[in-house]
Each structure stands twice: as structure tokens, then as C-alpha cells.
């Protein structure tokens, strides 16, 4: 064994620092309080410090950073959305993702794989063409792929999809990618910490004080903080916080489950989504198949898993890839999704002055981590909504101006 390694093992002081500073006390006040230490909250803290020089910021996390939906999603990154607002927004995100490992000096295992959304009916082929045209119009590389091309590029696929709804084509999105999900929380967290932001884990927000329609303080399990700006970035638990400031939203919480197989030899390069079977799958760098399906059918504030989810998803997976019948499912888990009526997020200023919302992320939040952090940081710094998020404001529901992303955001509807 090399002598240096032995000396390192026996030494009391380690050259590799901790990822970020542990602060024993909360200060009596901060310029900005960010509720939620997930990817979005930490990204906002990072860009506030890096791009706007706002460093008197604390991030309050009830549990451990990235322990919420950031650590529970199926890591798919794409920008093949349906509406102009959506396409422009998610495209920005993909572009930010591509340089993120470099920015952080941390390997996020970002891997561009290509993404197929399989179409099994004429109606879904119509939506496929619609999405391809909107994407191309905004410079996003998506196109319609024929059934022959799909069969050629994914040879293990059963083109009859179990015999019920044969595959007739697909939306092929070349920039589709996967990444190591919780690593992005660590990357943003460390970057924010290095610039003076305080990250406080095991700190729960128990109340928010509003005086004359303006934020004045935040009550936590570790003390009271005076502040004039609060960013709520706790998708999956948003209503509990918005109730504290008396804000009404359309958000309803549903569990979203997922599961992963044992590692197998690499055989699946692209990410596969089936609109009709309501399932999706990708293969990680470790060879595991990460699989997901539609939302749970009813509201629930819990991350419990069910057997019928696994059974249903496995059945659909075998419709697409029959050769997987002996591969074992190793683990299943769930997150809680902030569902909105139009399958688009809720971002930006609210009627409560100083209270900013980054919520309504449903089943589409992970891919937006960099751009939501950047736009929310800009919005907080300037006090009004960034251009890219104007279509996502809470006020849109009152005006019946919904941003309809149901056709591109999710499966299983």
C-alpha cells in the first residue's frame, strides 16, 4: 500500500474539504430566505450570489439537501415541449446543463443520449408533428422519426407494443439527456456556499410573517429570521407554505412513483417514452434501467410505494422490451408532485410583496433546475418577472391564460 495513502488514512486533518459549511446558528436577519434546499432552491442561491452579488442569503432545508424531489426523479433532461413559452424555457435549461459540470468542477454524469417519444396512434403522431414544428421554429433539434427508423435504432423494441397499439413513429429529440440527479443539488450548494450563502439543513419553516401585504419575517424550528424576501422552492409541499402567507393556488399534491432494475450490460442508448403505454425508461452509466409511469390516481402527501405500480409498469415494459422478463427490479420509491391544471409551473412574483414562488413543478421539474434557478434569481434581484417565466405566473389562472403543456409534459393522461 502506498505510504501516502496510509498516512492519509491515519491523519486527523483531511485535504478534501467538506462540500459546504455547517452553520451552527441562524443570523437574526438575511436579505433573502430560500425555503427548500433542493436543486431549484440551491440553484437560485447560486445564481443570486454569482450573477447578482446577493450573498446575504440563507437556504432552509427541512431534511437534507436534495432529499426531496431532486433525489427522487428519473433524471430525464429535454426541451421537446409543446408551447412557445415551454420550448424557449426548457431549451435555455438544456443549454445551461451542458456546461454545468465544468462550472461546478463536479462530475454530474451528464450524458446526451437522444430521446424518443413513441407514437402509437394517428392522434399522437399529430401531436408529435406539432411538437417537432414548434421545436424547430425555436431552434430545438426535434423531428418526426418513422416507424422504420425507430425499429432500426432500437432493435430490441417490440414494434407491436404487446399487440395492442403498434408503434407508428416517434418524436426524436437529439439533445435528450440524463444526469446524476442529486449531484446537481450538491454542485449548486457547494457553489453557493463558496460565495457566502448559508445552507441550513434540519431547519423547518413553521411560519411566515406578513405585515401590510409585505414579507417581514420567517419563523423556523431553530429561531426567527427577519427578512423582506422569501423564495418558496419546495415543490411537493408547496401548499403548506403558501397557506402561511394566505395565498391560494391550484396546486394539488400527487405521488409519482419510480423504480430501478439491477445493472445489466449497456444495451439502451436513447431514452424511451411511450405516450400510449404511459411508461418511460433509460439506462444509467451503471447499467440500471430507471423506469417510471404515470402519476398516482389520487391526492396523497406521502412517498409510499405500491405493488400495483411496479406490476403495471413491469407489464408495460415487457410490452416494449419482452427480452427483459428475467431482469430484476431492485428498488422503488416515490416523490410528491405539485400538480397544476395546465401542466406548467408557477413561477415569479405573487400578490404578497417579497414572496416569490417557484412551484407547480409536477413531473417536469428536474430538467428545469438550472433555468429555474437562473430566472428566479434574476426575478428576486430585479423585483419583477424574467421574460422567460412570464407565461408561468400565478396570475394566469385568474385570466384564464393557461400555458397548456399537457401534451408534452407527462405521461398517463
Amino acid at each position, binding site marked *: 500500500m502506498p505510504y501516502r495513502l496510509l498516512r492519509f488514512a491515519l491523519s486527523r486533518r483531511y485535504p478534501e474539504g467538506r462540500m459546504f459549511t455547517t452553520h451552527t446558528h441562524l443570523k437574526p436577519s438575511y436579505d433573502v430566505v430560500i425555503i427548500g434546499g433542493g436543486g431549484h432552491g440551491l440553484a437560485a442561491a447560486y445564481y443570486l450570489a454569482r450573477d447578482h452579488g446577493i450573498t446575504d442569503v440563507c437556504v432552509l432545508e427541512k431534511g437534507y439537501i436534495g432529499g426531496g424531489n431532486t433525489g427522487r426523479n428519473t433524471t430525464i433532461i429535454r426541451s421537446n415541449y409543446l408551447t412557445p413559452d415551454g420550448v424557449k424555457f426548457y431549451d435555455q435549461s438544456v443549454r445551461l446543463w451542458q456546461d454545468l459540470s465544468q462550472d461546478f468542477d463536479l462530475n454530474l454524469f451528464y450524458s446526451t443520449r437522444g430521446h424518443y417519444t413513441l407514437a402509437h396512434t394517428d392522434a399522437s403522431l399529430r401531436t408529435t408533428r406539432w411538437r417537432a414544428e414548434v421545436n424547430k421554429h425555436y431552434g430545438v433539434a426535434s423531428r418526426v422519426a418513422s416507424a422504420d427508423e425507430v425499429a432500426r435504432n432500437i432493435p430490441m423494441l417490440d414494434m407491436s407494443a404487446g399487440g395492442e397499439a403498434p408503434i407508428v413513429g416517434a418524436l426524436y429529440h437529439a439533445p435528450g439527456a440524463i444526469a446524476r440527479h442529486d449531484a446537481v443539488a450538491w454542485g449548486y450548494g457547494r457553489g453557493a456556499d463558496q460565495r457566502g450563502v448559508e445552507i441550513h439543513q434540519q431547519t423547518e419553516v413553521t411560519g411566515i410573517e406578513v405585515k401590510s401585504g409585505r414579507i417581514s419575517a420567517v419563523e423556523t424550528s431553530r429561531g426567527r429570521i427577519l427578512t423582506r424576501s422569501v423564495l418558496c422552492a419546495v415543490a411537493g409541499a408547496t401548499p*403548506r407554505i403558501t397557506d402561511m402567507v394566505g395565498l391560494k393556488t391550484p396546486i394539488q399534491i400527487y405521488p409519482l412513483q419510480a423504480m430501478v432494475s439491477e445493472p445489466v450490460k449497456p444495451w439502451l442508448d436513447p431514452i424511451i417514452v411511450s405516450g400510449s403505454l404511459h411508461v418511460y425508461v433509460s439506462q444509467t452509466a451503471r447499467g440500471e434501467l430507471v423506469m417510471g409511469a404515470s402519476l398516482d390516481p*389520487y391526492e396523497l402527501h406521502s412517498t409510499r410505494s*405500491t405493488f400495483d405500480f411496479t406490476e403495471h409498469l413491469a407489464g408495460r415494459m415487457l410490452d416494449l422490451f419482452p427480452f427483459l422478463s428475467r431482469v430484476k427490479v431492485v428498488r422503488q420509491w416515490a416523490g410528491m408532485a405539485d400538480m397544476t391544471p395546465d401542466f406548467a409551473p408557477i413561477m415569479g412574483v405573487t400578490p404578497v410583496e417579497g414572496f416569490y414562488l417557484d412551484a407547480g413543478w409536477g413531473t417536469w421539474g428536474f430538467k428545469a433546475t438550472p433555468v429555474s434557478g437562473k430566472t428566479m434569481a434574476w426575478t428576486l434581484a430585479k423585483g419583477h418577472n424574467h421574460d422567460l417565466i412570464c407565461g408561468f405566473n400565478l396570475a394566469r*389562472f385568474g385570466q384564464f391564460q393557461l400555458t397548456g403543456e399537457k401534451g408534452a409534459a407527462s405521461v398517463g393522461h
Partner: protein
Amino acid sequence: MPDVDRCTDIEWANYIFHRNGAAGVKKEWWYHVPSGVWFIAERDTARDHVLSTYLYDAAAGPSASLTSSPDAGLAATSDMPRPSAASGSLEDSPP
């Protein structure tokens, strides 16, 4: 429910879209597939426990059974180990 003919557009939009999203005891419509019966369940959406189930009473009017606020006089009397014969077993009961 706001008076459709007299309320403002914003009041109507808020009624359509905004809801109580926090965890709590909610009144929900459930459907028993084999018998085709619609019924109401009062369910604790944090623990996923059904507290009671009952049929909709048309005579009592919509306000009697269709509010979804958690504090609509719902003292949890007991957990519901077995649904009543009238309402049948719940579709998609959690394990």
C-alpha cells in the same frame, strides 16, 4: 360556489382553479367499478386513511356533502376498517 351570474371573472376563475392543496381530511368522490356506484369518502390525505364513506344525498343539496375544506365539521370518529355494505369496497384501496 359563487353566483355564476353575479360574480366577477376573477372570482369565477379562482373558484374553478384554486383549491385547498394542503394535507388534511378531504371529502372526495369515489367510484365503485363493479356496481357503478358513486359515493363520497372522507379521507385523511396525509396518512391515506379513509375515515368514513356514504352515499350522496340529493335531497340535502350540493353544499351538504361536497365541500373540500378540511375543517368542515369532520371530527374523525374512527378509522374505517371495513366500508359499509351500501358503499362496497373502495376501488384502488391502498394496501
